[in-house]
């Protein structure tokens, strides 16, 4: 078998499984799950084989088939291999494999079991498509396909109105981002005449000003896509709602992979972005990180806390890209994929343990009852908060270091403050859920999850622990050579690298962690209800209400659109249909009725009209 066939198999195997499940094995739940898991695991294994075969060479390789070719509009369906995409493939198939396995346990007994796996497979296919896309339009196509999968999975329990609404909201919000995205693609295509990343890069390398005046706007328009998919401010509102989906979905799509696609895409098209665009991107990222972290402090739903945490971390990544550091961004993306997936899966385990209870104030003291969950959750929390030597420490440090390197003190400050907040809200969560007293019956009768769910937790825990110092960063540096690259050679060097490269950032990060931890400990170690609600007062309410963004959008944007729709509808009904057509109809009818009045039935009238007709006829011809 040729090596070129492998990626196609990797890509299409999940799709095939989705199709087979949908068409043939809807009834047989076990078989469906088996097919789906088999497909994604095989994809993962093949990816590993492929990666080991081709290595991490930055040399670009492409496989392409022509998809559409009309004049200047030429779109390939191509696969693009470089360290960026290969690493992302590994992450996607790997995390997806684990979550697929986890889902067997989590979704056990659900009536949409087969459907769930079909959608999950479809998602895996779409996500791989984004990763492998070699041109803008293909990227856009898969971009939309992950949107579909997300919609289907968020609305998986469609009988719940909140889930159905959340799915719709997620999709529509994403669509607004995609609107900018497609405009960006159009602009770039119209200016540079190509959609292929390689070709575009070549053009821009040979002539950096090829985009001319539209450079900034094109970059920002493309960034819009990332804003939507990665839920950056101002389109961040959909992600917390998307937690209505089953927890594995939150873990896979709304934590590990899909939401990271925006960051991935920005790295992929980094060559297009000029300085002003990057600046905007970095500030949007920073602001999102801050905003989300603040909101997370006062959330009580375990998944929502994690969702805001995700937002916040995505903000970090986007900020990193904006600061011109794709490597830190991708590094953080990788580690975040592991520990955030782990956190979600852990929370899923907790939720399952407490019989679908999601309010953290109704849990408590779960440490003993769900030990595996607790320990893995703890590892993930530490990773997220940036505790040495957990993976999050390294990746977060690289971002903070980048900010410092760029002398962007505002963003550095934001980053550190967010790090404090992160530690605070995560430990708040840990203390309330796992320590303290049991706060409800469900928590009283909690039990540990089945093994099929615990093994993915364990594997992810290991990954969260080690991902920071096994050289992940190195993969990305191959693609984006750093300015002062010092290739770390060995394991121990990796382990202590941050302290050597950017000691200030590393220690500042650790200090921030400590501040956050102690604050949380002080406030929540024994609390039965949230003390901050009273202490912060209105601020707390604002935080709990997500700073009223939903309401704001509801009142402005959605209201505006609905008003326009109402006006259009009114116009259509009363002006076009009513006035114009009604006038024509009524006018014609009335004319008919009026003309008919001449037919009085009276001979004299008839004779008179006849004579009048003759007179008119004569006058017409002879009257002049």
């Amino acid at each position, binding site marked *: 078998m040729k090596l070129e066939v492998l990626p196609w198999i990797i890509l299409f195997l999940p799709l095939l499984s989705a199709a087979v499940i949908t068409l043939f094995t809807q009834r047989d739940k076990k078989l469906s799950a088996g097919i789906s898991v088999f497909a994604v695991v095989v994809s993962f294994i093949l990816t590993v084989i492929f990666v080991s075969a081709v290595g991490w060479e930055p040399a670009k390789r492409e496989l392409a088939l022509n998809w559409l070719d009309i004049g200047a509009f030429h779109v390939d369906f191509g696969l693009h291999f470089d360290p960026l995409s290969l690493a992302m493939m590994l992450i996607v198939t790997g995390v997806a494999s684990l979550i697929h396995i986890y889902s067997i346990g989590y979704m056990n007994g659900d009536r949409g079991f087969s459907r769930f796996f079909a959608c999950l497979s479809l998602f895996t296919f779409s996500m791989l498509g984004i990763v492998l896309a070699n041109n803008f339009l293909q990227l856009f196509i898969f971009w939309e396909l992950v949107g579909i999968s997300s919609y289907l999975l968020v609305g998986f329990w469609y009988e719940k109105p909140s889930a159905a609404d959340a799915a719709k909201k997620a999709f529509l919000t994403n669509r607004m981002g995609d609107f900018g995205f497609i405009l960006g693609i159009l602009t770039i295509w119209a200016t540079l005449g190509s959609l292929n990343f390689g070709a575009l890069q070549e053009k821009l390398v040979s002539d950096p000003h090829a985009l001319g005046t539209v450079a900034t706007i094109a970059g920002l328009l493309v960034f819009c896509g990332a804003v939507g998919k990665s839920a950056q401010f101002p389109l961040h509102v959909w992600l917390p709602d998307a937690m209505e989906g089953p927890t594995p979905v939150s873990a896979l799509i709304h934590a590990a992979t899909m939401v990271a696609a925006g960051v991935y895409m920005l790295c992929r098209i980094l060559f297009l972005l000029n300085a002003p665009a990057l600046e905007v991107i970095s500030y949007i990222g920073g602001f999102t990180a801050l905003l989300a972290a603040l909101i997370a402090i006062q959330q009580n739903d375990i998944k929502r806390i994690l969702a805001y945490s995700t937002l916040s971390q995505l903000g970090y990544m986007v900020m990193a890209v904006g600061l011109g550091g794709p490597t830190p961004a991708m590094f953080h993306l990788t580690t975040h994929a592991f520990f955030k997936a782990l956190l979600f899966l852990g929370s899923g385990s907790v939720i399952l343990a407490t019989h679908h209870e999601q309010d953290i104030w109704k849990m408590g003291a779960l440490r003993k009852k769900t030990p595996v969950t607790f320990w893995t959750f703890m590892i993930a929390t530490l990773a997220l908060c940036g505790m040495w030597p957990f993976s999050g420490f390294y990746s977060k440090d690289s971002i903070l270091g980048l900010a410092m390197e760029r002398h962007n003190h505002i963003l550095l400050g934001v980053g550190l403050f967010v790090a404090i907040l992160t530690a605070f809200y995560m430990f708040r969560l840990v203390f309330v859920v796992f320590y303290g007293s049991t706060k409800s019956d469900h928590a009283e009768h909690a039990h540990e999850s089945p093994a099929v769910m615990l093994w993915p937790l364990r594997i992810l825990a290991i990954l969260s622990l080690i991902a920071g110092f096994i050289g992940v960063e190195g993969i990305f540096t191959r693609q984006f050579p750093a300015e002062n690259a010092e290739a770390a050679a060995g394991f121990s060097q990796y382990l202590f690298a941050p302290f050597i490269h950017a000691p200030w950032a590393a220690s500042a990060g650790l200090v921030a962690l400590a501040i956050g931890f102690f604050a949380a400990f002080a406030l929540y170690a024994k609390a039965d209800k949230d003390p901050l609600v009273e202490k912060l007062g209105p601020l707390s309410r604002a935080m709990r209400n997500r700073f009223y963004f939903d309401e704001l959008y509801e009142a402005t944007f959605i209201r505006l659109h609905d008003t326009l729709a109402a006006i259009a509808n009114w116009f259509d009904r009363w002006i076009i249909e009513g006035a114009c057509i009604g006038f024509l109809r009524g006018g014609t009818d009335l004319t008919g009725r009026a003309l008919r009045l001449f037919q009085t039935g009276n001979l*004299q*009238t008839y004779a*008179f009209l006849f*004579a*009048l007709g*003759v*007179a008119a006829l*004569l*006058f017409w011809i*002879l009257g002049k």
Partner: protein
Amino acid sequence: MALNDTIFYIFAALSVICGVMILVSRNPVTSAMFLVLTIASLAGLFALLHAFFLAAIQILVYAGAVMVLFLFVIMLLDLKVEERRKIKKFGAIAGLVSVGAIFAIFLKSLSVSHLAGNSVLTTEGSTIELGKLLFSQYLLPFEIVSVLLLVAMISVILLSKKDLK
């Protein structure tokens, strides 16, 4: 020629006045009588135009047959004086205006048109001449008219049958 002119004016005035009387008299019998007079004066004009045969026919057929038919019907139906219903003024005025318009246009056209008007008038509407023409040149319409008369005959019989079987 003065005599002819005088006769013309007399007959013309007579016919027009009688025509107006048809229009204005309330009793159908009176109208019919005035129509007879008009027809008779027209016959006079025909004679003046040397259409002697037609003048005779006019009297015989029209005044003699047609008008008698009319009177007969009037008597048969025992038509009284037209009831004095309110005359629709608007109708009358509109009628007058439209007819007036036709007449005005006719006069105007007449005033600007060149008429053939031969100075030497040779036509004599004698029976022989007419007969010749009728049975040679105009044989076809003549025959068609015969069919027409047949139709009229059948029709009248049909329409006047008292019982509807």
